[in-house]
């Protein structure tokens, strides 16, 4: 089953968190949040681990992971790029900005560049509508982004 070897320290840490949550299925979503925080994403191995610890089936965990958009089964890039596709950003041209990122990086939404540097995802409203369109790279927020700014933003991280 395990193709990836999970770092033992983190495995122990996750088990500890699950114990604190009472190893009870009702707390599954909190456990998954903790797991994603620890591992960065939720590969099959982590899901199996969580299922064991929380006393639910792996199928149930998989069902929950795939239901919520916050949980990801693909590792994010070193610099995760999120484009806000909330309505306010959309009407101020977020789609053009997104197209530009896709074109420059040659990956689709939800994918990571082969070198692992960048990944693109869409957000639904950061809540900074005054700055629309908004793009975040890691923790940094870029406001009032135009398609022609995209190249410059990417340059900062190369």
């Amino acid at each position, binding site marked *: 089953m395990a193709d990836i070897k999970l770092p033992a320290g983190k495995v122990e840490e996750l088990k500890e968190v699950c114990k604190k949550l009472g190893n009870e*299925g*009702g*707390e*599954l*979503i*909190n456990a*998954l*949040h903790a797991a994603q925080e620890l591992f960065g994403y939720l590969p099959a191995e982590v899901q199996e681990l969580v299922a064991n610890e*929380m006393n*639910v089936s792996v199928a149930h965990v998989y*069902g*929950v992971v795939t*239901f*919520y*958009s*916050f*949980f990801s089964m693909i590792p994010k890039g070193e610099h995760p790029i999120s484009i806000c*596709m*909330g*309505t*306010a950003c*959309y*009407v*101020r041209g977020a789609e*053009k900005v997104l*197209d*530009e990122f896709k*074109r420059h990086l040659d990956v689709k939404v939800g994918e990571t560049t082969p070198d692992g540097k960048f990944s693109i995802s869409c*957000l*639904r*409203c*950061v*809540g*900074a*509508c*005054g*700055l*629309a369109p*908004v793009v975040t790279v890691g923790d940094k*927020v870029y*406001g009032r982004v*135009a*398609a*022609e700014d*995209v*190249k410059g933003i990417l340059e900062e991280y190369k």
Partner: protein
Amino acid sequence: MAKYKNHILVCGGTGCRASQGEEIVQNLGKVIEENSLENEVQVVRTGCFGFCEKGPVVKMVPDNTFYVQVTPEDATEIVSEHLVKGRKVERLLYTDPETQERVSESKDMGFYKKQIRIALRNCGFINPENIDEYIARDGYAALGKVLTELTPEEAIKVIIDSGLRGRGGGGFPTGLKWDITRKVEAEQKYVVCNADEGDPGAFMDRSILEGDPHAVLEAMAINGYCTGATKGLIYIRAEYPLAISRLKIAINQAREYGLLGEDIFGTGFSFDVELRYGAGAFVCGEETSLIHSMEGLRGEPTVKPPFPSESGYKGMPTNVNNVETYANIPVIILEGAEWFSSIGTEKSKGTKVFALAGKVNNVGLIEVPMGTTLREVIFDIGGGIKDGKKFKAVQTGGPSGGCLTEKHLDIPIDYDNLLACGSMMGSGGMIVMDEDDCMVSVAKFYLDFTVEESCGKCAPCRIGNKRLYEMLDKLTEGKGTEEDLTLLRNLSNVIKDTSLCGLGQTSPNPVLSTMENFADEYEAHVRDGKCPAGQCKSLMQYVIEAEKCIGCTLCSRVCPVDAITGDKKEPHLISQETCIKCGACYEKCKFGAISIQ
């Protein structure tokens, strides 16, 4: 406690923080120390002021000077001029776009004049991380009053009489909901706060939680006393880290003060609050889905009845209200039902917070009495349409709402009027669109959202919305037929009538309302193969008019794919094969030489 002569309030909302709000706070602190003013001046991080368009906002107290678009570098001047010399920093004041005069106080700004702030009363006034500031503004007095002076029935009667209706979208009378929960006998009951703000473009709940978290905690405790619940749960989006951290601080402070926990105010009443995290699912705004999500399951809805008030979290009676609804409660208890019901329209009482965004000059968070017209909101408060363009539509209610147009501008906004126009109140997103927005594309945008967010449990929503999206996509590609329009309308109605929960029952609203209000635009896509707004890429091309082009080369320099060729001072040419229709050249050309065909 030190007594400060002056306070500098810096907006600590997400929007302003994203534009270096935190650096402003740090720089102000540094400069204040350099001038040895640290015992006289206090810098306070507050919640959102609402005027996001002009952020970051800094307000000086006590003279109420309101500085806009402040940068970290301005800190020195604010301290040396305003505080030391007592002179206002003119260049940082707001300029009234009509009179071109500088306005120094928020109460004189068009943006604030028509607003009444009840739910947002403390946002931008207090430090949300300090419970004393909340208490200083009558915080927890309502809880005290309810616990010591009123029976649960009396308190619920105040809420019923106030006419408060659910601010999350549906508009169910809040007091009635509380009463139903109270009447059900059970060992354990729960109070839930729905902070899963999923409507893209609405951020009022987040702003309230970031700016005034104690108001929500106090209201939940009041609800607990009224309904007989001792446990409160706040279901909040994991995407709101700032709101989460402020809530955690608030809960701990309230526990320390004995305002949450055992035997509150020595009355024997116990109540505590915990946080539960969402994980990004729009459908979890629906109360049965939300409850399933809190139970660690997929957030799928179930048929009502039974309503959560009867059988909710873990099968126990659960009262679910939205953040903004709760934020109104303490004030209603203190000021009385009569006061609250004197504001608003006959069937919609009080105020409503709207997140005004899109192509409007003053983007921000506003709170207006029910019954205010769309025209007042968009033109008086919002300052009209950006770049002098023409107003085309306003979308209310998010993915569940509809697009209203010119003819609806003078209708007083309330729950029933919006429903009658084919839209809805929803959580209060209000997106303004101008002549450049294609209504078919807007409908497609919302359907794209719905398709992604449909939980998949019932067929009409899962399959129907996907088919709607495909048809709209066909229209924007210029491949639609007259028959598609009929089909689009029929299918929309079927989805509305047969879907299991509120998501599917309202998801065709953007389609139906745009078809109703912008029929000619749909027809233009089908009959003439044209997109009147010039937004649908397949139906347009950018062309340079040789006689207007002076050959400045600006367009060829901004073109990301080098599709524009031409020598200096000679008319340029766009290669239609290479052009990706991004519109960069169109926006940059200073001579209006590029047109859309």
